[in-house]
């Protein structure tokens, strides 16, 4: 249950803050509490104000010391981010649940070799080799038919799930290893993007890493996918040239792995769904809230369309260049979401049609069952697992919401 609590403050109020980690970032400062995964961006003035407040200076004293007319936005931000331990000596309830990290036994020294220069040379050679094979012999490109490895539909589904889950696990592990290399910890979760069931790595502590180094963690998953796909393609090529004997099932499974991995990388192109490519774009543009600002921009646009009262961009106002980027991203968000929803709907409609209509009426399709994983049971089993995944992800996300929200009540202008 989410509760709203009023916090009364005056100019004479004093605050105690939780210990914060601070990092300079593009002319501003990022302050955060890794234990709750909560971060704020502060101007130099806001950081100095927070430091004065943390030292026990009252709000009024802090305003006078910094010649700042208002501290209210800062106070509200610190409260919402769960960074205020107490107000006038009264402890506040923690609004955010504590984070859990995974694979915390890993240290930088354990993973540094994976990001060393010799390792990068090996990766480059592997990727160039795989790419060369595909360019020279396009038959190694993934194809829809690669999804069929064995004739038994349930067996095929089990194989597809196994390969997909393994690919997902390795993708997320690559993100975590990269974060460990950069000196921060991370955690895994099951989540969703639109109607896609996803595995997720929480890399929020990357805010404490140099902006240019964050790319390593952002692209680690996709690089892992491409390298694994390259290795699989190389193994297939070696088999076809009599240099690496592979059984028929292993050969088919490797083709399936290439399909899953390459499509996984292509899926990352849906950056409007906050995929890995999104974080690369957000980092490159310096927009720390690109998705959230774009969503707010669209909501405000819709509200204005219907109510004609809300301004297009809610406070705080963004710099002109960031506003342009947010607008562009918002447009792509609408187009991309509409496109992927249309594709998903077409796919679902096609599936339903094939299952309920053609499959029932056209006996010729029974022949095609030998080469396609058609049939009600595999599809229903797959849908059931996906629905359970999505339901768990939704419930889990709701549980991570703030337990309390604080509303700042002030009789005087803060």
């Amino acid at each position, binding site marked *: 249950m989410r509760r709203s609590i009023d916090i009364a403050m005056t100019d004479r109020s004093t605050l105690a803050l939780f210990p914060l980690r601070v990092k300079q970032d593009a002319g501003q400062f990022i302050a955060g509490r890794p234990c709750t995964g909560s971060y704020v961006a502060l101007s130099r003035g806001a950081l100095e104000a927070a430091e004065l407040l943390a030292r026990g200076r009252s709000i009024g004293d802090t305003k006078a010391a910094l010649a700042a007319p208002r501290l209210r936005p800062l106070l509200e931000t610190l409260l919402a981010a769960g960074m205020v331990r107490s107000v006038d000596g009264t402890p506040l309830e923690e609004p955010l649940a504590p984070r859990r990290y995974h694979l915390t036994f890993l240290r930088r020294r354990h993973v540094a070799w994976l990001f060393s220069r010799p390792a990068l040379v090996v990766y480059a050679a592997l990727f160039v080799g795989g790419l060369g094979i595909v360019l020279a012999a396009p038959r190694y490109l993934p194809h829809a038919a690669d999804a069929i490895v064995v004739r038994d539909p349930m067996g095929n589904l089990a194989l597809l799930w196994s390969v997909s889950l393994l690919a997902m696990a390795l993708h997320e592990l690559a993100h975590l290893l990269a974060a460990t290399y950069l000196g921060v910890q991370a955690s895994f979760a099951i989540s969703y993007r639109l109607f896609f069931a996803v595995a997720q790595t929480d*890399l929020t502590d990357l805010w404490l890493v140099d902006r240019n180094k964050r790319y390593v963690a952002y692209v680690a*998953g996709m690089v892992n996918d491409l390298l694994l796909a390259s290795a699989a393609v190389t193994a297939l090529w070696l088999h076809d040239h009599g240099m690496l004997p592979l059984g028929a099932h292993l050969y088919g499974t490797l083709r399936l792995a290439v399909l899953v991995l390459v499509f996984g990388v292509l899926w990352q192109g849906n950056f409007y769904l906050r995929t890995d490519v999104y974080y690369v774009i957000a980092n490159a543009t310096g927009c720390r809230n690109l998705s959230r600002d774009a969503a707010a921009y669209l909501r405000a646009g819709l509200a204005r369309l219907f109510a004609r009262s809300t301004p297009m961009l809610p406070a705080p106002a963004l710099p002109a260049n960031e506003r342009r980027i947010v607008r562009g991203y918002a447009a792509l968000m609408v187009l991309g979401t509409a496109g992927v929803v249309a594709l998903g709907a077409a796919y679902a409609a096609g599936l339903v049609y094939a299952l309920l209509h053609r499959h029932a009426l056209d006996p010729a399709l029974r022949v095609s069952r030998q080469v396609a994983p058609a049939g009600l049971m595999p599809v229903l089993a797959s849908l059931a697992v996906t629905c359970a995944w999505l339901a768990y992800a939704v419930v889990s996300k709701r549980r991570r919401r703030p337990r309390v929200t604080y509303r700042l009540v002030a009789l005087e202008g803060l």
Partner: protein
Amino acid sequence: MQIEARRIEAIETTMTKDAWIALISAGATFATAIANAVS
């Protein structure tokens, strides 16, 4: 002095298990188009 403060979003990288579903048709077309172009 300017006092600006904003919460910033979480960083949550992802990988879907359903990429093959959503992109299978597009992927097949893509592969065919490349194969046709190369051959």
